[in-house]
């Protein structure tokens, strides 16, 4: 039986269909979760939080989505060890919910960045895209607010605990320490600015994103 995964949608989410198809293509059984929903965390093998512009990025990107009813269940899921992946705006939401460390700020260039980038795996996470540290993937980025920020003390803490997940080979947005993705201390909750769901077939430009969904079972 294929694993059920919850895809969380807010007002303004716009990468939801892409993520759904990537999950289906990897043999998973996606189900929608709406921002007003409560759900039973253990019903799902994993939760996926797509990209987009929830609440139009009003106040701060991800801030309003992080305080919606569904996030109470997402928080419970994190406590119960359900793997959670936030992509782009989903990453911003997880940071705003304080399920991940740090914050995402407007790109250093002041411009939206839309490009393919190389990422290097810093610390592998059992629940997500395992692989050898140092191995690389090629994925698209598309964001205005992708500059990962954490203060010096926080950076040292996440470095020491192995919470840096992926780093950019060439930094596209001014992120501290070239950070493209981080995890919580457990390694189950992860966030990533690039879009693995947009790289799951050769016609898309590459299929390095597949491994992010194949690991879920």
């Amino acid at each position, binding site marked *: 039986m294929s694993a059920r995964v919850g895809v969380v949608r807010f007002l303004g989410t716009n990468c939801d269909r892409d993520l759904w198809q990537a999950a289906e293509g990897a043999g998973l059984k996606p189900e929608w979760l709406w921002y007003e929903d409560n759900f039973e965390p253990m019903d799902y093998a994993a939760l996926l939080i797509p990209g987009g512009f929830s609440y139009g990025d009003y106040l701060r990107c991800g801030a309003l989505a992080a*305080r919606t009813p569904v996030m109470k269940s997402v928080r419970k899921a994190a406590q119960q060890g359900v793997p959670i992946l936030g992509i782009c705006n989903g990453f911003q939401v997880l940071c705003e919910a304080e399920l991940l460390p740090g*914050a995402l700020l407007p790109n250093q260039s002041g411009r939206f960045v839309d490009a393919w980038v190389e990422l290097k795996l810093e610390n592998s996470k059992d629940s997500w895209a395992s692989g050898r540290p140092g191995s690389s993937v090629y994925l698209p980025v598309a964001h205005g607010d992708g500059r990962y920020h954490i*203060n010096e003390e*926080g950076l040292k803490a996440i470095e020491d605990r192995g919470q840096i997940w992926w780093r950019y080979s060439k930094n596209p947005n001014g992120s501290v320490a070239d950070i493209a993705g981080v995890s919580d201390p457990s390694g189950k909750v992860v966030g990533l600015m690039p879009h693995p769901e947009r790289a799951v077939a050769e016609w898309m430009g590459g299929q390095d994103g597949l491994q992010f969904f194949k690991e879920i079972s």
Partner: protein
Amino acid sequence: MIVALKVMPRREVLDTQGRAVAESLQRSGFALESCRVGKYIEVQVEESDPDKALEKLREMAEYVLYNPLIETFEMEVVQGSGQ
């Protein structure tokens, strides 16, 4: 009563919006060293005691209106209930 929150990016955080505004002003001939852009948020609460109104605003600030990792805030009373 109307109370307000001034939210500013922390000094150590690069403020891209402020930098863009500063560059535009400088190119237009204005003399300035730098510029930072924050937010100003007004909230109307049913409260006649300014301290209590500000306390309510502080709760809202800590709940969502500012992010301590990247911002700082100040509060003020804009309009009392008697006005």
